[in-house]
């Protein structure tokens, strides 16, 4: 009897590239945000509010968030694959990770465009 082995295939290179591209995107966003804060000399409520009122900044923040969540998915799945051997438990953890990531994405959209 063939034992089914629940692992995917052929996603290695794509995931490797994903981790690099999302990492560079997040690093750029981090440096830009630090530069904005540094240029303004710190962050107070009025400035913070004005920053998020700018739709270009909101879109950039959304892209940062999506890059982060995609990056976290690849990383967390690698961790579950490497350390959690029982298939049912691993798939459960992977599913919970996906649910959390989608929930976080929704939360982020709500923060950015939910209307305050």
């Amino acid at each position: 009897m063939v034992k089914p082995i629940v692992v995917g295939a052929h996603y290695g290179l794509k995931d490797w590239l994903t981790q690099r591209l999302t990492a560079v995107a997040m690093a750029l966003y981090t440096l830009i945000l630090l530069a904005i804060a540094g240029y303004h000399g710190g962050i107070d409520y009025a400035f913070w509010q004005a920053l998020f009122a700018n739709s270009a900044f909101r879109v950039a923040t959304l892209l940062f968030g999506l890059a982060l969540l995609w990056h976290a998915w690849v990383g967390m799945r690698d961790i579950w694959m490497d350390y959690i051997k029982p298939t049912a438990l691993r798939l459960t953890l992977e599913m919970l990770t996906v649910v959390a990531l989608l929930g976080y994405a929704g939360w982020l959209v709500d923060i950015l465009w939910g209307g305050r």
Partner: protein
Amino acid sequence: MSSIERPAPKPRPVYLNLARIRLPVPGLVSILHRISGAGLFLVGVPLLLYGVQQSLASPESFESLRAAAATPLAKIVLIGLLWAYLHHFCAGLRYLLLDVHQFIDLKPARQSSVVVLIASLALTVLIGIRLW
């Protein structure tokens, strides 16, 4: 029949005792990259989202968030997350350099991993002191 006696095979380890493995520095940086990444996802992302939400909701919630972040417990958590971010950032930068074949040889690879370890700790201390 050959008269040469083959040496008896050494028993192979059936499991690895993590406490007895002497991890080389690149290995330490690698496992810390994983641990910091998991910490950033499990603790950092929800805290970040909550923080951004509270900081934008109203001037009052902005100030109460600032006050909550100033408690010693919050500062310890935040400095832990700061280290996780910096280590993950620096170690990730090193992996990008390895990808383009920099520091590939054993010695440079070891040296760059020491640089990552020390730089992220030093940056954590420097920024941590400023924020505390």
